[in-house]
């Protein structure tokens, strides 16, 4: 199967899901799709707040100084059920974040993908592990 066919099927399926599911707020009103960003930093604090968890990391710049970035993550309820507890992401953990920058130019981004520095994912998501719930 050609890649374009796979992409078309994926888009169709995503459209089906997306019609019933959106994040708490509009992504594009807060973040800029034209500003993808990849950050590597050390977890400084985690705010377990609704409607979104915020993970604050210190990112070391090439000149040796650091700057703080805020990463918007999922709802605490879901993350907790998936196993992201205080112990799972302690202060000082180094993580890599892929996302998009905030539209207002502040040092914030959404956390679309988050991994440890060795490439392991922070979480594996709901595609595994909860088979029982929908039946």
């Amino acid at each position, binding site marked *: 199967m050609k890649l374009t066919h*796979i*992409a078309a*099927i*994926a*888009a*169709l*399926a*995503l*459209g*089906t*899901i*997306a*019609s*019933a*599911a*959106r*994040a*708490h*707020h*509009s*992504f*594009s*009103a*807060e*973040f800029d*799709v034209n500003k*993808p960003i990849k950050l590597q930093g050390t977890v400084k604090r985690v705010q377990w*707040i*609704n*409607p*979104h968890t*915020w993970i604050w990391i210190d990112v070391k710049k090439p000149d040796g100084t650091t700057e703080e970035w805020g990463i*918007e*993550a*999922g*709802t605490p*309820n*879901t*993350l907790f*059920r*998936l196993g992201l507890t205080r112990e799972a992401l302690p202060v000082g953990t180094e993580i890599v974040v892929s*996302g*998009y920058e905030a539209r*207002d*130019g*502040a040092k*914030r981004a959404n956390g*679309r*993908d988050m991994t440890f520095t060795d490439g392991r*994912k*922070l979480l594996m*998501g*709901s*595609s*595994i592990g*909860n088979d*029982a*719930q*929908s*039946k």
Partner: protein
Amino acid sequence: MRPAALATCFVVLALAAVHGQAPAAKTGATGVSKTPWGDPDLQGTWSNQTLTPLERPAQFKDKPVLTEAEAAAYEKQLVDAGNVDNRTPGTVQDVNLAYNQVWWDRGNRIVADRRTSLIVDPPDGRIPPLTPAAQKRREEDRKASDNEKFAASWLDFDVYSRCIIRSALPRLSTGYNNNYEIVQSPGYVAIVQEQMHETRIIPLGTQPHLTSTVRQWLGDSRGHWEGNTLVVETTNFTDEARGSTFQYATRNMKLVERFTRTSDRTIDYQFTVSDPDTWTRPWTVKMPWNRIDGLIYEYACHEGNLGLEHMLSAARAADSKK
């Protein structure tokens, strides 16, 4: 204290007294557990999470039910589609799902009877045609949604972004926090909705609805039992804010929900919505509420609604560049 407020306090206290749920009495002759005062027992924590779409997709146009093999393939297709590794960065789909599979809690199964849509009536599994007035409301809503990037005020956002309610009733399966807790006491059924932590308190009996001038975010519900089925009729919705009505309906929409316990772990949930100003005919959804082995958690949306602040900040930053 006004009588209405006193009544509310009484209901809350009564529910608090049974919180943790009243113990179920012995299973009746029909096999359905009963509360100590004899009502069918719906209590517990439940999830309406499912991958089954509300409307039947075009790919299953003449196929209301899948075979087991087809269902497995469809589930895999939907799960894979949500996997970030299969997406093309920068596409519309990517932006719509700006959080990868990790942040969602949609589950990975369709409904157990393998239907291709949650809608069971009309038989084609599709929402009936919108009236011209409803089409206009839908178009206006889409424009308003697009214009959130340039919002002048929090009033430009919908009820979800403003943390007022998740969405109007009835509730469909969404991206996360699809969990509910049902608590019963004599004369009342309460449904705690995890997102966004509202509690529906449903009086049972024949008392009339509130006067039509009183409008509420979750409408005004009245319930009664038909055999082992809890039937809840809800009216008095409001169109006070964007997104406060269901699927472009007017505030005069009528909702009838039916909750039937079919096993220890399942409630058959069905609803019918009707509104002649919106749809050319009523339509009905059937979806399971499945028991979850755990608690529901607080979703105090207002406590850290930084998203609203950030979106307004982004709009002002855009203004300054004009």
